């Protein structure tokens, strides 16, 4: 009986040690500082496929061509044909061929990605420097060159997310799967 007691006691002690270790790693000193609405507004620049987060502004391809000439052509080539870096235009209908050409027009499923990426990452030497209207305009230019919208279509906060990209249904959601395996 005495031995049983001891064993029981040590199991209890061991158990509480394990509990402490786990608790320690789950405990939080709660040092996060509340964010103000203004702080969130400044920080949160991401735009999902629903277009929530798009800023006020607008632009069309005619104006966008000028932005492109000034900011983009040296890397992305005339009319987005590429070289020295990625092509932005062309390849629509090529994805199932043996020479797929993956561009904004042929491969990108969402127009919001074009706006989001251009605003946060471009131009290479001066990211985040374009105004919201310039981003709308140059996005419109890329979509126009791909034949997705017309040259005078005024892209804005309300309609950008509605633009249907040719590869809108080209992605297979693998997020619930494990690693790809082959037999």
């Amino acid at each position: 009986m005495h031995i049983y007691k001891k064993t029981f006691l040590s199991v209890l002690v061991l158990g509480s040690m394990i509990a402490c270790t786990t608790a320690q790693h789950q405990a939080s000193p709660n040092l996060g500082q509340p964010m103000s609405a203004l702080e969130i507004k400044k920080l949160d620049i991401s735009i999902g496929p629903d277009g929530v987060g798009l800023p006020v502004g607008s632009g069309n391809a005619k104006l966008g061509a000028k932005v492109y000439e000034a900011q983009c052509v040296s890397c992305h080539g005339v009319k987005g044909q590429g070289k020295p870096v990625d092509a932005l235009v062309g390849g629509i209908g090529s994805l199932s061929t043996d020479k797929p050409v993956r561009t904004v027009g042929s491969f990108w499923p969402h127009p919001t990605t074009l706006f989001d990426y251009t605003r946060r990452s471009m131009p290479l030497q001066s990211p985040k420097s374009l105004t919201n209207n310039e981003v709308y305009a140059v996005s419109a230019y890329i979509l126009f060159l791909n034949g997705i919208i017309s040259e005078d279509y005024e892209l804005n906060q309300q309609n950008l997310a509605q633009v249907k990209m040719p590869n809108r249904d080209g992605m297979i959601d693998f997020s619930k799967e494990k690693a790809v395996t082959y037999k």
Partner: protein
Amino acid sequence: MKITKLSTHKDQSLTENLLDEPIVSSNSHKFPENPKRELDRRKFMQTSLLALASSPAMVMADESIKNDFPAWSTTPGKGLNEYGQPSKFEATTKRGIAKAYGDLAPGTGSARTPIEKLEGIITPSGLHFDRSHNGTPDIDPTKHQLSIHGLVDRPLNFSIENLLRYPMISRTYFVECAGNSAVNIIAPKPVQATAGTLHGLISCSDWTGIPLSVLLREAGVNPSGKWVLAEGADAPGMSRSFPIEKAMDNALIALYQNGEKIRPEQGYPMRLLLPGWEGNMNVKWLRSLKITAEPTHTKDETSKYTDPLPNGKARQFTFELGVKSIITKPSGLMKLPSKGFYEISGIAWSGAGKVARVEISTNGGKDWFDAMIDGPNHAFSLVRFRAPWNWNGEPAFLQSRAIDERGNIQPTRAAYKANNAVDGRYHNNTIVTWAVQADGSVQNAYL
């Protein structure tokens, strides 16, 4: 009795050999000499020296032993220094740079880990691979913070100073770029290069930091919050979406790498670690975690890091990295000096967790035998495998094949090619073949 002037002995070449021990230089890709033969040679010399020492004919004038030692044994060494560096004789152990767009974008591309020059499982911090999309930012930690916002009860900012007060955990995790080994899939003929050049977008560190779940609980994730968008403070604001389940499971906000503060190229002052998932998702220079209902579909989870299929569709959100292994010794561009004994050594890992087994073939996959897994075998870490090999001097095809705890096994290159678009390149975990030629040179090969 003291040996004073060995060089007077008739067998002068013997003493010269002793003073001039061969140094296996890392400059060349020479395989180390046959260790057994080396041992025999040393034994022979020791015996000979004993014989010399007992010979009265060897007693000479009273001289110091200085001339019998190399310069570094007879002069004081360099003074103490504050941060140690590798030997100058290891100057070629460095990352190989691949700029995606040349000098147009010097910070865009990759610096690859020279895996063929490393041993064990930990990658020295300065040699951890670096894949960046517009350079390494120079972040002042006192002006940087992590913000958690979106679908949470309490949007919060965390300063680095405050984060350093949280309880931490240390874990050994690999990071592999989803584009690692891409050249071996895309190039129609095998490119002749080192293992690091071909497969060096893999590294492994001891990371210390805060479980992301702790910070998320503090902010209070809403039931509608199913995804997290992680965003970096680098020039391109690199961003990726990942499911909330991973965030609560084993995601880590890492502040330390191999004991010291995380290196700038690895995300100083903090990075996200999603164990076993594609490197690009382990967002460096982390500044924001936004809880969302749906994935954001950023540039790097749509136009890149998706896996195109032959039918024109593409798999999106292929997060987990497949089971994989690479023989690092012998490997590409090395040369075996002669037939005889070699140790095959390499690394293996799996995005599923632990590596269960690594098999070796020396005849291109006809026969397989188990390698030994040497040292620690942690989940989501590199493991080191080893196998003895006696090379008979004939052409050989060395392969390794890892199997993970879920039973996944490395596929062949042919299986990958059949299941992916012609330009598919991500998640190449196919079996790597090193062809040993009759002259001992080691080449990259497709089988």
